[in-house]
């Protein structure tokens, strides 16, 4: 477990460093951030939000849980976070309640659990790039 903790700490450090770069970059993300700050997802995730999960699936550790307040997924993941081997998967809820992820963008599935499993199948053992790295461009 110690290696997991180490990795998490390292990732958190990376995310903070890159977040600064993202804020000054003239990108869609930077431009859209202001608008998203005031978003209200309370009517979006239904009663209590998606079911949490924590399991091994095809040799990968997948976790889904309520997003920590102030985290990227608190507003990007509609209040829910999904991790594959401790790396966060960018997810999004559609207006009809279905979900998609960055590795499975064009095929909505029922819930974050299905999205996490589909991502594991698509990844075929590959590692996710830390999410903030994606968003820094």
């Amino acid at each position, binding site marked *: 477990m110690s290696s997991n903790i180490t990795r998490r700490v390292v990732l958190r450090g990376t995310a903070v460093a890159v977040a600064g770069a993202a804020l000054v970059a003239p990108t869609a993300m930077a431009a859209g951030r202001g*608008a*998203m700050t005031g978003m209200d997802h309370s009517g979006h995730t239904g009663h209590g939000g998606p079911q949490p999960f924590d399991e091994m699936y095809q040799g990968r550790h997948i976790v889904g849980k309520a997003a920590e307040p102030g985290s990227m997924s608190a507003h990007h993941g509609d209040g829910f976070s999904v991790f594959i081997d401790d790396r966060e998967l*960018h997810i*999004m809820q559609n207006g009809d309640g279905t979900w998609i992820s960055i590795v499975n963008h064009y095929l909505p599935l029922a819930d974050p659990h299905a999205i996490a499993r589909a991502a594991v199948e698509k990844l075929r053992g590959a590692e996710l*790039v830390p999410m903030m790295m*994606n*968003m820094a*461009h």
Partner: protein
Amino acid sequence: MAVRKNQAGLSATDKRNFVNAVLELKKRGIYDGFVRTHEEFIMSDRDNSDRVGHRSPSFLPWHRRFLIQFEGELQKIDASVSLPYWDWTADNTPTASIWGDDFLGGNGRSRDAQVMTGPFAYSTGKWNINASSDNRPYLQRELGADGAQLPTRAQVDAVLAMTTYDTAPFNSLSEGSFRNYLEGWRGQGRVHNSVHVWIGGQMATGYSPNDPAFWLHHCFIDKLWSDWQRMHPTSGYLPAGGTPNVVDLKDTMRPWNNVTPADMLDHTKFYTYDR
């Protein structure tokens, strides 16, 4: 003025010139900028907040502008090149000529979905994946895997018959909306979306322009918009104005900030289609 042609009818020279121009953009680092821009919009375009490139009325003009910019970059390399379109209702098998060694290359191998043939195979050293959500450096495809289906001509015709460009709430929930049914969040065949899914690999992700098939797919979507405009000459872009979170007819679109949907309605200022 560029004439965009059906890829099925391209000569060997047309194919070679297109492929070489794409490879040169990759070599110069320009290509990956398009991949990153697309992904940034994929992540920020949301049903309940600002949306520009996807799940919104400007899906079609945004991609039209995106393709014009890409085509312009290709033409700086080779002025004879134009974007080809892929009619996936007709050339709808993994053995169609679009997937030939002389054009986009073939399906991925079963072990890791890696494309092994054609000019975009990793082994050529000319097509490394640099912008992605994971650490695989090679192009992947899984043509038609897991029962994925391409839209049929009948499904496309049903969408073309719709008379209203877009409807409230102007997102992935819009019913009776030509745009939303063409984009494929609603409707039989889930038209645009299901082509991304059918190809698989990077095409199924937010980094879909990593696969050059992206441009041929979106060129056909662009042509279908043009066909729809000709079929419904009195049906204009909607919404016309005053709509929160979406791009109205005369609002500017990010990331360019100097182009509106109104500017994109007549593509013949920029290029024409062969039919």
